[in-house]
């Protein structure tokens, strides 16, 4: 409950900070559309609000998919990207940006629009995931799926480095910029699509709550409790890929949040029950993402730091501090 209030406060803080300083009262007026300053209203409605909403979706989505993977793979090091989702997206984007040189200059300008990057990232993560799923349907052991996902990640990383080797400096820069992650480029229309897919992912997660708790006992116990392991596993993997896949497509590969948020939540709430963990992870993920984004904008300056760097800079010390304080990892 208190987390929800903190979330609201962070949300307000996030939209009130930016390169242009706008007084708090005008922010409220801008949101409901009664502001007399048109440029402020434009900034708030078309830039800051969608960015704040994106931060919430990204933070909660990554946190949840991280939790799903850690429970499914019984591994505290698992994150939303263990199945090769992010490397698949990277490969798709790399093919578009770095590979576009092969198609000639005029064509490449057309190719590198934002939508083509979103589509390439979605396609890339979807295809890698499909490959992982196909292979995993033949394997009984959940750990094997984890390793298969990592292997697919290595393969795509290798292809990306080969592509980078043959690319120009400008293309490389563009690719690296995508890799920094960004929350601020979404229009309302894009946000709606993002939100729609996000909701499907959350829905699949909610119907898996019981299965997730059963998985805490291990697979043989889960089976003896009448759980359909293969089906539950598929739903959980699908939910993760929908969440992490769309997030990567729209906001770039944002590191760390997915791995760290579930740990921070478990340390704070001291439970493994997913009925409590899931909403807590979602709220905390959103809060931390909003804070990270507020810091990344370097309030009142014109610069914006890469969000990907901030999440790790903030998140890693928090996890270390929590582990040292409690002296024991709760998993």
């Amino acid at each position, binding site marked *: 409950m208190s987390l929800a209030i903190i979330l609201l406060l962070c949300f307000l803080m996030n939209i009130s900070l930016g390169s242009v300083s706008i007084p708090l009262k005008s922010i409220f007026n801008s949101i409901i559309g009664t502001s007399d300053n048109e440029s402020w209203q434009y900034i708030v409605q078309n830039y800051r609000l969608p960015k704040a909403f994106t931060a919430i979706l990204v933070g909660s989505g990554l946190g949840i998919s991280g939790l799903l993977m850690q429970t499914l793979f019984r591994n505290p090091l698992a994150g939303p990207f263990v199945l090769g989702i992010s490397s698949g997206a990277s490969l798709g984007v790399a093919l578009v940006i770095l590979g576009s040189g092969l198609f000639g200059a005029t064509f490449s300008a057309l190719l590198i629009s934002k939508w083509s990057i979103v589509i390439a990232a979605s396609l890339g993560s979807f295809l890698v995931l499909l490959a992982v799923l196909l292979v995993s349907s033949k394997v009984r052991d959940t750990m094997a799926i984890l390793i298969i996902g990592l292997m697919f990640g290595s393969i795509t990383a290798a292809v990306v480095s080969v592509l980078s080797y043959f690319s120009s400096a400008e293309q490389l820069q563009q690719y690296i910029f995508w890799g920094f992650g960004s929350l601020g480029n979404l229009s309302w229309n894009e946000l709606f699509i993002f939100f729609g897919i996000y909701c499907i992912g959350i829905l699949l997660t909610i119907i898996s709550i019981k299965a997730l708790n059963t998985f805490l006992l291990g697979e*043989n*116990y889960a089976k003896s409790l*009448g759980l359909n392991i293969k089906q539950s596993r598929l739903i959980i993997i699908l939910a993760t890929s929908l969440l992490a896949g769309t997030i990567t497509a729209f906001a770039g590969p944002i590191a760390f949040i997915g791995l760290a948020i579930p740990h921070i939540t478990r340390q704070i709430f001291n439970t493994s029950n997913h009925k409590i963990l899931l909403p807590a992870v979602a709220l905390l993920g959103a809060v931390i993402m909003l804070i990270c984004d507020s810091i990344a904008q370097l309030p009142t300056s014109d610069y914006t730091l890469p969000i990907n760097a901030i999440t790790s800079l903030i998140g890693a010390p928090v996890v270390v501090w929590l582990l040292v304080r409690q002296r024991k990892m709760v998993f």
Partner: protein
Amino acid sequence: MAKNKTHIILNTQELSIGYRSKKRTSIIADTINLELTKGELIGLVGANGIGKSTLIRTLSNIQQPLAGNIDLNGKPLTNYAGLELAKTMSLVLTEQLMSKNLSVFELIALGRQPYTNWVGNLTKTDIAIINKAIAQTHLSELKDRKSFELSDGQLQKVMIARALAQDTDLIILDEPTTHLDMYHKAYILKLLQQLTKDTNKTILFSSHEIDLAIQLCDTMIVMTKDKVVADSPCKLISKGIFNTLFPEDLIGFDDETGRFRVKKS
């Protein structure tokens, strides 16, 4: 006492167990014919590597038999749907729990999963059954502890309570006494015996504690290289079965005391 057909919980006919791979089939034991009766405590003993775990895994549907039938409550095991089986048979396995951050109550409550709704909410009936399982295993004081705070013996009791909460006719335990000291070995097996009397459930466990099993079990299943025999401990002793359990060079069974002794060389 004449055995009534309807009181047989589990029986096997010409069961053959082992592992099958593409290249070859390795049979670990065959022609196993067993009948487990309602309300009995049954101990499964045998030397290391003789196939106790394989038999337990086969009976508990984790592993498929190579040949023969297993009937649970008169119905072939293969005809059971997942949930239906979960309401008839519960397990206590040797595998480590993945998460030890659940409280004792939460862990035992997971035994109610086959009965709860889609999100796993506990009804009043569920909570009553959980509390009864907690009382029967003397865990009331530990109810709110986290599982990682428990000793091995306590954790084993919790896992037994979880199986009790699943409210099944048959409970199968795979080596419930490993890693426990002498007192807790006796304690756990005595608890199982008490539970069969109180709840009229059938409990099957595998164990290396042959002398304890002889004292507590209604029926024992003895696995040797050549055959699998099931009978009451007394009859098994008079048949001299326990002498065939191990190679005879080192230890021998003493009929008088019901124990194994190291042979004097």
